[in-house]
């Protein structure tokens, strides 16, 4: 029995130790003379509130943007409909339209391959939307949202570190500048007040209500979102570039299956000539050559943004090859983008485009690109980079290009919102003016 009691005693002791370790010993703000409301606690509460509303404190450094600018509410004259259902209908319509377009533009194995990729992508998108719509009809959406919020709310893990980093790198340098400036001009300054003012000014730039997407995709009904005072989702139009191609797609399997289906009756894509449309083509007389090479000054990912003013490249060199025998269009590029704004950026871009000549000097396809984002704060004294490390961003863009009738020049476009048919309807000359210019060489 002694042994049993000894074991019991040990277990109780272990439990007591464990429980006492998990219980906070004292509350930091319980001052001996009563409750003290700390100024920093008030600011921290504000930052925590903003963090819960979807703010990323790294974005505090975006100067000059009033907070409400970030909170967009779209009022609709019609009764509120579920934007998820609207998007689902749009995606279904878009998929059906694209399916028809593919069947009209392509034949044989190529049509088979493209249709198979489309079907898998559409199916994946539609299933995800249907799940979200189902959630929005039940209560699961709210639960999912709370789970997400609960994960985000762990200030011990993330927010406090961000707060300190924000104070160290954003608030103090600017406050120090003001204090020195005021001292030099002979003004009396209260250091603490300057720091506080700077802190508040910076903190006000936090994104306000960027929570809608999270709520929506968690399946929270739009009415509930609006009742919370958050922006209602806009019934945005959908284009094909917004539909992600699932990583699970096995292109080789699709190709093999399509070739089997074609059964030799139709030419495989590898043996398809450049003339993929009916009637004589402007490239017909060049079929004895191997390829058309287009050297383009392609618009970079940063084209038209303020990052270009801060040193990011506006364009990069891009070599596009149109294989005259097979009708394929391919390109690969790599470029680095470095610039300095609130932080230092050293991004690496890699892209691979694959498409086909569609006749009459037009070619189009899809680009898969990867951006390795590396941003850091620089300690100018030690040269130390303060960074969370690299982040990888994968994107899919469609592209379209056009070759002038006399092959004197070409143009290349990507990242546009219109469909390829809409782009083509603008006409060759317009696109040659509007898109990135290319020189042409036939070899």
């Amino acid at each position, binding site marked *: *029995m002694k042994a*049993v009691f000894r*074991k*019991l005693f040990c*277990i109780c002791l272990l*439990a007591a130790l464990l*429980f006492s370790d*998990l219980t*906070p010993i004292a*509350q*930091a*703000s319980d001052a001996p003379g009563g*409750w*003290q*409301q*700390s*100024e920093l*606690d*008030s*600011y*921290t*509460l*504000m930052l*925590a*509130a903003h963090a*819960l*509303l979807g703010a990323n404190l790294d974005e505090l450094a975006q100067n000059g943007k*009033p*907070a*409400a*600018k*970030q*909170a*967009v*509410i*779209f*009022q609709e*004259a019609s009764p509120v409909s579920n934007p998820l259902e609207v998007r689902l209908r749009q995606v279904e319509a878009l998929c059906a339209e694209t399916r028809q377009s593919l069947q009209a533009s392509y034949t044989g194995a190529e049509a088979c391959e493209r249709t198979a990729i489309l079907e898998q992508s559409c199916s994946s998108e539609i299933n995800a939307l249907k799940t979200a719509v189902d959630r929005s009809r039940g209560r699961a959406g*709210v639960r999912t949202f*709370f789970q997400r*919020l*609960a994960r985000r*709310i*762990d*200030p*011990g893990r993330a927010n*406090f570190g961000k707060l300190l980093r924000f104070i160290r790198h954003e608030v103090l340098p600017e406050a120090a500048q003001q204090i020195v400036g005021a001292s030099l001009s002979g003004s009396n300054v*209260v250091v*603490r*007040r300057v720091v506080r*003012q700077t802190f*508040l*000014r910076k903190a*006000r730039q936090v994104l*306000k*209500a960027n929570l809608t997407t999270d709520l929506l995709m968690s399946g929270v009904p739009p009415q509930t979102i609006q*009742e*919370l*005072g958050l*922006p209602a989702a806009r019934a945005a139009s959908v284009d094909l570039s917004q539909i992600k191609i699932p990583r699970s797609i096995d292109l080789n399997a699709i190709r093999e299956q399509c070739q089997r289906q074609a059964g030799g009756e139709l030419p495989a894509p590898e043996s398809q000539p450049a003339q993929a449309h009916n009637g004589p083509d402007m490239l017909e007389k060049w079929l004895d050559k191997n390829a058309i090479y287009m050297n383009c000054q392609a618009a970079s990912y940063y084209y038209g943004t303020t990052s270009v003013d801060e040193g990011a490249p506006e364009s990069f060199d891009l070599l596009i090859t149109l294989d005259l025998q097979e009708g394929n269009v391919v390109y690969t590029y790599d470029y680095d983008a470095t610039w300095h704004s609130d932080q230092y950026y050293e991004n690496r871009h890699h892209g691979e485009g694959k498409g086909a000549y569609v006749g009459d000097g037009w070619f189009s396809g899809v680009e898969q690109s990867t951006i390795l984002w590396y941003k850091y704060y620089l300690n100018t004294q030690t040269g130390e980079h303060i960074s969370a490390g690299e982040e990888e961003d994968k994107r899919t863009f469609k592209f379209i290009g056009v070759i002038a009738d006399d092959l004197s020049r070409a143009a290349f476009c990507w990242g546009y919102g219109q469909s390829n048919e809409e782009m083509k309807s603008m006409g060759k000359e317009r696109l040659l003016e509007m898109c990135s210019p290319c020189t042409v060489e036939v070899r």
Partner: protein
Amino acid sequence: MTIKTDLKKHWKAGCVLAGIVFIFLAALFMLGLNKLADITPRSYSIAPAESPPEAAYTLSNEQKGLLAELGYPEAFSLHFYQDDLAEPLQAGMRLEIWTYYQAGQEVTLLNGQVIERVDIATSTVIGAPYHPEQFSETMGADLALKAAGLHEYMRAPLDTYDIPNGAILFGRQVAFGFQGDHLLYVESFALEGEQQP
């Protein structure tokens, strides 16, 4: 006989031990659940207030002047704290930031006195349906919710690493920050509007 008695003894001790282990594990499980509940945001519904409460704070002359000049701000934030540098020691402070997006003005006030006035980019917004004088530092959560006329709100507790006993309450276009039952922060959010078609 002796072996039988020993087995009986061990069997009893085993049962006691298993019971204790079970209770211990159950206690740990409950503790875990309790911890999880401490950090899980929840939504609450409350009965609407019968009549809107009176103003909890008296506006200063400077604030009244601002109202006459620009009207009520489209958004504001309030911070309540004790300033240990002020005289008398540990004076209660009420820091207010009134934002007028349409007029492109932002005014910071400390205890009712304007201490900073800056120009900001103008934008068309839907103002928050609250006024700064509705809230004061003496309010607990119940009173603050009543003052805002909220029927529904979300409460997000913050664990003890960051703000001891801290909690954020979100309602329609408003957030409250509490430490214990002390109101430290109020912020109303303006939303950007779009022209009706």
